[in-house]
């Protein structure tokens, strides 16, 4: 009996003593690799991942790739039997294809379990909904985006420019509420070298607008779809589940983009997301509509020239008639490879919780590295709102139910993005004569692929089932 107690005491000492003194952590020995993008949703986090290893013992390696081609790598990774990557960066429109193929782990139960720890009630619900497929939460937001307009506030507030604009167009210069106003503003600010802008002689051409017109990775569709949605368009026919983009809203959106061409830089057909935002970041255009994940660079002088030569302003996206319409949201998120081991999944979830936590997000904001936030408490913080004026726009456009609507989330999203990318780009380049021809061509190609599936399945794919975490 005495020996038994002694043995038990030695065992207890060894397990508690050694464990405590050597700093053994929950996920010691686990190595996680993340397949990710090199954008603000990841670049802020990458330099501090060692802190996660200190906390939990799990080592995380983040491999960053450009957006074009990233989905290809993720699909190949998802189709492999023994995964190299346990964590995956997910753009919310990919949720459909990754969800239907079972590539991502369902996070619903984990989120419900750790609801308090992750401050679930503080997260904008639409940002969670963005990551659901058929009601299951498959990824967790690391950046919560909206598509909105950025503009040169310093130029919009210049008295001479205001007077000239009002004289020419008959209404005051202000961030556009309609696309007609947006086109007027783009036209007004398009100037050539030697002309005056904001009281200064221009050394080089200045453009009224920069939008993504490139076909690469369907970049043009990323700007076309928000405009299309702002005209009340819907991607799918609610009765058949087939393509619904060749509609009046589609034609109106294509018309807006075509009319904006003369006010864009001459290389407009090659404008990718980053090239387009680069024009705004260098202060070379008057206005540009894009995702808030890049807007965050506009207040950081290390990432943009604009804060040193002027000031950026932020406003919701214009709409067809100027009336309110659901904001187009998006989410850049982290998901877990469903083929990872159970231990890796737990460690990966711990990493997601840590990397997207309110504390980390607030820390990024306070350090000056903006992230397109998704916690209400951060977006509504008056001090942070003063520092990052776009926080107000982010909050006001998606806080209340019905304010915002998620992006496209269909399993055939890659086909839609690519096919519309090419057809719209051809129309903008003048290879296709009319918008109707371009949109019909694209829809016909997509429908050919969809018609082989039963209508019931097609209708299920377009149905946005509310996330069961809200139940």
């Amino acid at each position, binding site marked *: 009996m005495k020996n038994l107690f002694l043995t038990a005491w030695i065992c207890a000492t060894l397990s508690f003593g050694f464990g405590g003194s050597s700093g053994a952590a929950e996920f010691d020995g686990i190595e996680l690799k993340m397949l990710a993008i090199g954008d603000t949703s990841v670049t802020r986090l990458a330099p501090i991942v060692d802190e996660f290893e200190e906390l939990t013992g799990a080592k995380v390696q983040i491999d960053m790739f450009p957006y*074009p081609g990233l989905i*290809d790598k993720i*699909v*190949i990774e*998802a*189709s492999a039997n023994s995964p190299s990557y346990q964590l995956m960066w997910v753009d919310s429109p990919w949720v459909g*294809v990754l969800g*239907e*193929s*079972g590539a991502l782990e369902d996070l619903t139960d984990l989120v419900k379990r750790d609801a308090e720890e992750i401050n679930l009630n503080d997260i904008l619900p639409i940002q969670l909904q963005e990551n659901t497929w058929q009601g299951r939460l498959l990824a967790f937001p690391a950046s919560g985006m909206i598509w909105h307009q950025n503009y040169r506030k310093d130029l919009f507030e210049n008295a001479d420019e205001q007077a000239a604009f009002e004289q020419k167009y008959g209404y005051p210069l202000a961030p556009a509420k309609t696309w007609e106003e947006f086109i007027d503003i783009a036209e007004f600010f398009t100037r050539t070298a030697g002309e005056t802008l904001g009281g200064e002689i221009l050394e080089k051409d200045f453009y009224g607008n920069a939008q993504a017109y*490139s*076909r*690469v990775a369907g970049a043009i569709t990323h700007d076309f779809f928000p405009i299309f949605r702002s005209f009340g368009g819907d991607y799918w026919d609610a009765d058949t589940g087939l393509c619904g983009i060749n509609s009046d809203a589609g034609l109106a959106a294509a018309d807006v983009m075509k009319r904006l061409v003369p006010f864009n*830089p*001459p*290389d*407009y*057909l*090659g404008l990718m997301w980053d090239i387009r935002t680069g024009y705004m970041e260098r202060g070379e255009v008057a206005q540009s509509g894009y995702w808030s994940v890049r807007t965050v660079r506009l207040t950081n002088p290390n990432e943009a020239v604009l804060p040193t030569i002027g000031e950026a302003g932020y406003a919701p996206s214009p709409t067809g008639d100027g009336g309110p319409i659901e904001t187009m949201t998006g989410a850049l998120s982290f998901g877990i490879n469903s083929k990872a081991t159970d231990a890796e999944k737990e460690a990966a979830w711990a990493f997601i919780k840590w990397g997207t936590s309110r504390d980390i997000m607030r820390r990024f904001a306070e350090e000056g590295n903006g992230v397109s936030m998704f916690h209400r408490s951060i977006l509504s913080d008056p001090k942070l709102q003063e520092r990052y004026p776009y926080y107000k726009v982010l909050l006001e456009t998606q806080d209340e139910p019905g304010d915002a609507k998620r992006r496209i989330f269909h*399993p055939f999203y*890659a*086909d839609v993005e*690519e096919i519309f990318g*090419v057809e719209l*780009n*051809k129309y903008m*380049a*003048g*290879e*296709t004569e009319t918008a109707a021809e371009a949109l019909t061509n694209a829809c016909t190609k997509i429908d050919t692929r969809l018609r082989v599936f039963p209508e019931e399945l097609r209708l299920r794919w377009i149905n946005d089932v509310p996330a069961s975490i809200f139940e």
Partner: protein
Amino acid sequence: MAYSKKRNRNIFLIFLLPAILVLFLTTIYPMLYAGYLSFRSYDLAKPFVPRIFVGWSNYKEVLTSSEFFHTLWITLKLMVMTLSVQLVLGVGMGLLVTQRLPGMGIARTALLIPMMISPVIVGLVWLFLYFPELGYLNYFLSFLGINPIAWITSTEWALWAIAIADIWQWTPFIMMGTAAALTNLSPEPYEAAQIDGNSTWDIFTRVTLPQIKPVLISLMFLRAIDAFRIYDIIFVLTKGGPGDATEVLSMFIYRQSFTFWRMGTGAAASFVSLVVIILLIMLFFKSLNHSRRIS
């Protein structure tokens, strides 16, 4: 004796085995598997799509697709653009570097450098040169009073931009082949032509060109096959755009396989492309034999 012969044959086979194995794993098996895929419906991203035998329907889809014929047309156009310029410049350069002039050894080596660079790097170099706002090409053209050209983003220029990059990289290949052919020519016909009082141009067209024609045809044939494989430079410079102005056959195959993940259709397109290349090879061989018969 018989034992020794058998032993030698075994050793011979053992030495060949690694090469056969590599060839099988990297070429024969993938080709057979691609052939198998071309008769199946296989979507890598969508495992819920039934992976079934579909007969010739992938081939039918490719051969009735206007996109396929458009990309074939662009490929042929690019082939003619690059080959014609490369041939003229390459032969000219070949004639130049075989002259006994000072510094020709260094020039010959320097001119071969583009050929040794990876096509992706070539694409990136030319991307910097073509860049609309910051590119060197437009910068230098501005000194001549020429407005900036949207090299890679306009439908008028994009294919030329790719052709220029390809010409820059592969003209030395023609030069090298021409120079090798020229150095092996016997001097007698030249001496006879000079005695007859022929001009330099006449000597070139009537003596030099007919003699190096088989070599030139072989070089053109190799470059023509390369034209069907061109991918890297286009991927870096235009990715097939603007619109579909630079979308070549290899881009079509890539898009089917790795953008839409329709591996069956991509495999079928690859085999159709192989048939086109085989037809092209037959054409070249025919013309090579014809030229040999004449000479």
